[in-house]
């Protein structure tokens, strides 16, 4: 139970898809102009990640890993099909997305209307493939945790796009320097939010391990002080913005 809880919060806050590893940035930037569409896409991402990560976990466990084919018989135990993971994962994702689209259209037209247009977009969303690839490299031990990982990374992505959409709706009334308008300021805001999210790094580890393995060891303490100061400021503004939107 505890490991589920830990993975859940870790994937949402510490290894946030957008702020820590920049996955799904394309749709994050393209679809974050309005809160309502952002919510639709975010929900679709949670859903598809929740389906594809466990599926790909099964594929990884019973087909791809070194020696995974042992269940076919002892003569297959030596095969390592790991190099095929990209193509299998992306095929699973593309097929699932198509399948989900058809099923949703048939059984829930209302949901299809709100979610449907985003589904094809999702097949090529890096967050989805990234979820499966990270699941593989982090060696998630069982199916339940894989499902948990999929859902919680989806929620992290959802929170990120929701926050940036809310900020972008507000920022329309601000006087942004002309060359920064639109894309530029969105990048910078995302960067600042990312710094804010870095402060979650010590949440589970109790500061035992640093959130980012930085390479500079000499000038670290002073830098960290400065960064911490900025984090506090950023968090204030971010939470302020979210409050305003509520």
């Amino acid at each position, binding site marked *: 139970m505890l490991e589920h809880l830990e993975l859940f919060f870790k994937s949402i806050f510490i290894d946030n898809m957008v*702020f*820590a*590893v*920049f996955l*799904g*940035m*394309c749709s994050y*930037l*393209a679809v974050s102009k309005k809160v309502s569409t952002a919510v639709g896409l975010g929900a679709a991402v949670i859903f598809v990640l929740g389906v594809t990560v466990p599926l790909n976990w099964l594929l990884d466990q019973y087909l791809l890993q070194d020696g995974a084919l042992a269940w076919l018989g002892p003569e297959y135990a030596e095969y390592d099909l790991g*190099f*095929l*993971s*990209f*193509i299998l*994962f*992306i*095929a699973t994702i*593309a097929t699932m997305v198509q399948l989900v689209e058809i099923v949703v259209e048939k059984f829930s037209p209302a949901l299809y209307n709100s979610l449907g247009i985003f589904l094809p977009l999702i*097949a*090529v969303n*890096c*967050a*989805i*493939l*990234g979820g499966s*690839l*990270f699941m593989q*490299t982090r060696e998630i031990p069982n199916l339940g945790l894989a499902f948990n990982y999929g859902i919680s990374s989806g929620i992290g992505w959802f929170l990120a796009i929701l926050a940036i959409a809310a900020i972008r709706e507000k920022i*329309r009334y601000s006087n*942004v*320097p*002309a*060359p*920064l*308008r*639109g*894309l*530029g*300021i*969105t*990048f*910078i805001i*995302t*960067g*600042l*939010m*990312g*710094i804010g999210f*870095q402060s979650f790094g010590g949440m589970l580890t109790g500061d035992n391990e640093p959130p*980012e393995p*930085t*390479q*500079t060891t*000499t*000038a*670290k303490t002073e*830098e*960290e002080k*400065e*960064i911490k100061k900025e984090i506090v400021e950023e968090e204030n503004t971010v939470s302020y913005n979210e409050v305003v939107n509520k």
Partner: protein
Amino acid sequence: MALLSKKDANLILDPLADNNPITIQVLGICSALAITAELKASVVMAISVIFVLGVGNVVISLMRNIIPSKIRIIVQLVVVATLVIIVDQVLKAFAYELSKTLSVFVGLIITNCIIMGRFEAFALGNGPWKSFLDGIGNALGYGVILIIVGFFRELLGSGTLFGIQVLGDPVAKTGLYALGYENNGFMIIPPAALIVVGIIIWVQRSRNRALIEEA
């Protein structure tokens, strides 16, 4: 440009500046930012994308008349995935350390929006030679941004370029460090990449005001 007609040359040159995939078309940011903390990783990533996009565009362009439009996304994904597997295996064989640094981001070239975007927008409607030039041009435009970001992040964050200390030794206090210069650890953390790209966009749009977005 004797080798290429003016139109063909534009296919390569346009994406380098005024129609840059990252700063103007907003494509391919996903895998671009996380690996730019070091210049070396940026260069390798840029080369990989140039290979995948150049070859992939040609393949898709050759097949453009026989791909049923309904399943074209899956066909495209399979083509990219195959090329990316080649890149991944080559990296693992010849630059194992680097492929560890890049980790999942090599795989994420598959879902790099530039690749699908160019397939959809260009390769499906043009001949192989033009598609090849377009692919190379766009991948170069992507690579240029990657290398600029990587250059500044590594130089300001660690004081090195390609792992070589260019500003002097921070421990022995030589070079610039003797004057009291310190590395900026801020540049190493991931969000700094976003801010650097934001600044590049700012600079580019201040120089070319036609690119400014309507509020």
